[in-house]
């Protein structure tokens, strides 16, 4: 199980980088009417969305190998909470994008991915603190 805890930080680069950049590009493209930025952003958001699930699964399995969690319990709880919120928000955003073809559906989609982008920033912050402040799954 420690294998999963060690592999999670390596593969987490993809959903993090793709979703944050995707959200920024897509909102920028929509606001500036820039089709290229919007296309790149949409691709990144969708690619990042599908990368979320293996990373979430690996992180969840890795969590069971952690011991002495008392000192970083608050950070771990926040990391998990924001991770699941991110997944929930992006699933809703994908449903809105695919099934709500109304003018306000587009605005709702952009709002949802903006919220998702903020959630993934918080997830990354708490995950980063777990590794770099508390040395979780890293040698002291």
């Amino acid at each position: 199980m420690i294998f999963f805890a060690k592999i999670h930080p390596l593969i987490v680069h993809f959903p993090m980088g793709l979703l944050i950049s995707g959200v920024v590009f897509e909102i920028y493209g929509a606001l500036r009417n820039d089709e290229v930025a919007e296309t790149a952003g949409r691709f990144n958001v969708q690619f990042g969305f599908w990368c979320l699930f293996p990373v979430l699964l690996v992180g969840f399995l890795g969590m069971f190998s952690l011991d002495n969690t008392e000192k970083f319990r608050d950070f771990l709880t926040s990391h998990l909470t924001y991770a699941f919120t991110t997944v929930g928000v992006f699933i809703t955003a994908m449903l809105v994008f695919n099934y709500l073809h109304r003018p306000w559906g587009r605005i709702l989609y952009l709002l949802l991915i903006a919220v998702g982008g903020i959630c993934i920033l918080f997830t990354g912050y708490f995950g980063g603190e777990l590794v770099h402040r508390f040395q979780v799954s890293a040698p002291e």
Partner: protein
Amino acid sequence: MISSVTFHPFISHFSPALFIAGLALLFFAHKNNDDKLKAAGAFNLSLCLLASVVADFSGMVSVDINLLTVVTVEGHQGYSFLFTILVGFSAGYAYTNTYSRTALGYYIAGILIMGICLFSGYQLVFMK
């Protein structure tokens, strides 16, 4: 939201993700003969270059760099600089001669060096 300790690891998320996304977009553009996707791929690679440069500089001023030996850090730094150069060439070719043999060489070399760069950075934190 981004602490000083995790600044470089945070910034370094973007370059590998944008490089893979850029190359994937170029592949789909070639497959579907779609110029919009090709432009989007080149856009991703350009932003990947910017992210790589920022990651290089943030790595050089990383707060924990003094805790590691020069030899340990230099491997990762070397691969990072090489990756940045390869991304620069890939971005340039993406705009000009996207599917030439030289361009494909840069894309493949970029993927290989990106993998090594990610792993060497990972080793600095998880396999000291």
